[in-house]
């Protein structure tokens, strides 16, 4: 674990020391080496370890998600930023590695204060990455992201201080022990609510999603890929860890007719709002990046549906889904970046006749968007079905599933989402292109399309390949 960090930091240092704008390829190569090295180091670290101060823990869940974060980070690095966008590739990639380091630390801690520090390390790097390209839009994106992110960090920290004030503990296990004594004190509940609000910003849950469309549209593709995939996966892990380990006693219930205040109910409401907001607003978008941003809001909603069931199986399914979602949305962004580079914008019309210009991109786009829409045999479908099935099963009392209202809403909203994904696919496959010059892609960009596409098909056909390790890791971690 430490080795992983050291390797990453060495890579960072190498890049930062190179004063002159170094070649893009070199920067990408160094970053890749750093990430692969970190993966290798991960392989050698023990399955269970806690450092003396319990700041850092290595448990199965952390191991799995460190691998996931590194994988998604590797993909993001493979996606080459446009040369004219990024003047200093060395510094850009150094920041990418900093962000990854922050995310790695975030999944491997159950100490609340350290969690905050790690999360802010990641966030600060991501703010800079969002505004790296020096265009007006990127500046707007970075400013919005920073302002919203700053406010959310304040909420998060204030919530933590309230929790500390009433539980006198900062590690999750100690908090759980403190809470098991009696009912949740009201101020600690407020604190928990504020922490959830803070994480809601990170996850782009409505109504805390206002930064997402502008960031998705204005920031460089690599930065968006990190924000959309790796950072979201980490947000989900933090939420699962926090709620299931620390606040299992304060769940309440979101079941129809049996509702009780608690995080389960809050997440249920957030989920419903996110799904409706995200899907309805996505219908009206003409910029594909903005469309993907609203789809991100909607997908956070599906995720929260599973988490609000307050069960281990549903949480495992949610973690499966967040990985699969990350792959699909990353791929969709990668195709959008390629189209944008060629046509100059990311409007729906720019995708017209993509199947004639570049069959690879078109087929990859088909896989990514249909996976997001939840059409079999792709992993997005399996993920949604498993989440909804598990959420229903774990919310069943007296033979009646309590979350039918939420899962029903999710199923209907997911059906609606097919409409806007099809709007993009219609351009790519049905409409004719104005020009049919074939498009070339760099090798690393090709890889950035092929790897997630293959993974999505494989995980769609055999979801147990990822679901079983995730569920086992979750059970072993939460016990």
């Amino acid at each position: 674990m430490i080795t992983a960090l050291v390797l990453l930091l060495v890579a960072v240092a190498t890049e930062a020391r190179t004063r002159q704008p170094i070649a893009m390829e070199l920067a990408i190569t160094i970053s890749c080496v750093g990430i692969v090295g970190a993966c290798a180091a991960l392989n050698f670290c023990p399955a269970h370890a806690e450092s003396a101060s319990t700041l850092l823990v290595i448990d199965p869940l952390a191991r799995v998600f460190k691998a996931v974060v590194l994988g998604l980070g590797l993909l993001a690095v493979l996606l080459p930023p446009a040369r004219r966008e990024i003047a200093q590739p060395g510094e850009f990639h150094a920041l990418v590695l900093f962000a990854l380091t922050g995310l790695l630390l975030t999944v491997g801690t159950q100490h609340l204060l350290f969690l905050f520090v790690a999360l802010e390390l990641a966030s600060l790097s991501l703010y800079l990455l969002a505004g790296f390209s020096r265009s007006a839009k990127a500046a707007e994106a970075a400013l919005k992201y920073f302002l919203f992110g700053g406010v959310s960090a304040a909420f998060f920290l204030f919530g933590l201080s309230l929790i500390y004030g009433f539980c006198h503990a900062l590690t999750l296990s100690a908090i759980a022990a403190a809470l098991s004594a009696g009912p949740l004190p009201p101020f600690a509940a407020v604190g928990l609510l504020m922490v959830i609000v803070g994480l809601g910003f990170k996850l782009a849950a409505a109504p805390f999603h206002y930064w997402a469309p502008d960031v998705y549209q204005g920031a460089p593709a690599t930065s968006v890929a990190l924000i959309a995939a790796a950072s979201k996966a980490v947000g989900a892990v933090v939420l699962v860890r926090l709620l299931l380990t620390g606040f299992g006693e304060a769940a309440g219930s979101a079941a129809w007719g049996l509702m009780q205040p608690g995080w389960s109910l809050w997440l249920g409401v957030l989920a419903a709002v996110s799904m409706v907001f995200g899907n309805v607003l996505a219908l009206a978008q003409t910029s594909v990046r903005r469309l993907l941003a609203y789809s991100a809001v909607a997908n956070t909603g599906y995720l929260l549906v599973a988490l609000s069931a307050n069960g281990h199986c549903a949480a495992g399914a949610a973690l499966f889904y967040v990985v699969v979602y990350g792959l699909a949305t990353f791929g969709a962004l990668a195709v959008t970046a390629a189209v944008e580079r060629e046509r100059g914008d990311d409007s729906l019309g720019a995708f017209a006749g993509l199947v004639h210009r570049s069959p690879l991109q078109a087929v990859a786009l088909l896989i990514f968007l249909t996976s997001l829409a939840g059409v079999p045999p792709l992993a997005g479908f399996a993920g949604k079905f498993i989440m909804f099935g598990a959420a229903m099963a774990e919310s069943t009392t007296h033979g009646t599933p309590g979350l039918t209202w939420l899962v029903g809403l999710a199923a209907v909203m997911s059906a609606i989402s097919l409409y806007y994904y099809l709007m993009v696919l219609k351009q790519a496959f049905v409409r004719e292109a104005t020009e049919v010059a074939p498009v070339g892609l760099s090798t690393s960009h090709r890889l950035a399309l092929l790897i997630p596409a293959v993974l999505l098909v494989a995980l769609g056909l055999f979801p147990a390949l990822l679901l079983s390790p995730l569920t086992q890791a979750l059970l072993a971690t939460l016990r």
Partner: protein
Amino acid sequence: MTPAWTLISAFAGALLVLLLPARSAGMARVIALLASITGALAAAAACLAKLQQPDAPAWSFDRPWIPELGIQFHLAANGLSLSLLLLTGLVAIAGVLFSWNVTLRPRAFFAFFMTIIGGVYGVFLSRDAFLLFVFYEIVILPKYMLIAIWGSTNREYGAMKLTMYSIGSSALILIGLVVAYAAAGGTSFDLDYLASVKYAPALQFWAFPILFLGFGVLAGMWPFHTWAPTGHVAAPTAASMLLAGVVMKLGAYGALCVAMPLFPQGFLEWRLVIAGLAVVGIIYGALTALTQKDLKFVIGYSSVSHMGFILLGLATATHWGLRGGMLQMISHGIVAGLLFGIAGRVVYERTHTRDLAALGAFDLWRTLPGAAFAFTLATAASMGLPGFSGFVAEISVGIGVWKSDPWLIGPVAVGIIITGAFSLRAMHRAFFPVRDATAPAAAMLPPLTWPEISAIALLISASVAIGVYPMPWVTLIDDGLNSPLFHSILALP
């Protein structure tokens, strides 16, 4: 040959077609034809084996798939599935033959076509709710692409409307299935297990309509049928044949073999509502077909009317009614495929119009006698004249209705009469127009090609075979209906 070969041949065909190099795109249709024939032969062999040894243990394939949720990769076939597999095989062959002249992106066309066929086979074979749902949804995207790329009249609108109705109906089905799964303890998605659980009556009362409506939308149940005529008209010929011939049957099959066995008490509560909607669908579809100007719209609305008979048969909750509903599925699959094939391919390719009045000017009975002959037979089958499959099906449904709700037989008879009226009107106007003797004679049209003739011959002989000797089909269907799935529904004799 096990029934699994239907599934394997279809998906392997789709994959092979995609892998063809661009310069040998002409091979696509040959591969698709071979794959369809393999599938149909596998289905026929399985049906024959079942008829010869009715008591032999049923074929089944069961492997763990997603153990965390108790999902199995479970395929099996009873008589109901086998008969529908054979229907799918026949329609698939005819569909490929009627698409013999597709030159626009043929590889993609046949790949999507074979994917739909594979998905349909898969639904009929699945015994696990998750697996069934996977196959059920696999067909959605190919349907959209077939209509939006290769379609005609208002194709993008028709494709989107049909797709949104399909995905909306799947959302309802998803809700219904996970409710059943959760209420049964959240341990298994096996359909036989889910059907064996006794759910609380209150749960059945609200969960059944969700699940049934999901399947009913795809079966063209009034008033959720509007996607069907629009989509069928916009679709290319082969897709219209598939949609009307087999994809709508997925809805009916799901209603019969999933929704009703899962929530039998809910079904008995809602039975009369379904019957009422079905009868309205029969009459409304027939009346609308009577006023259409476009030949394909006539056939599209006639499908709504004919699908009403299937739902009515199911709603009787009698053995005769269920059997009639199944026979009507098979009969309508063949006849709708035939009608769409003749109207969309044989006639339209030569005249470039489907308008009934404009077709009259071509004097088709003289200039294209083969098509006129075939369409006359198809119309007879569609009207349910004795000797064709439609008669056997409608009489069985009628007996079922008589046993359960005799007062419904009146409106049904009215529906049958209007069906005769619109069928004869369309046939008369399009193929046997009354012409002014002084008008110049229309030029002869190119005669039927061999793929067209073989497809027409295949479907007509299938319809006549069922009409003249329905016993094998009845035996197969009864085998399925005698399974424990339907015990609690068939309370009435």
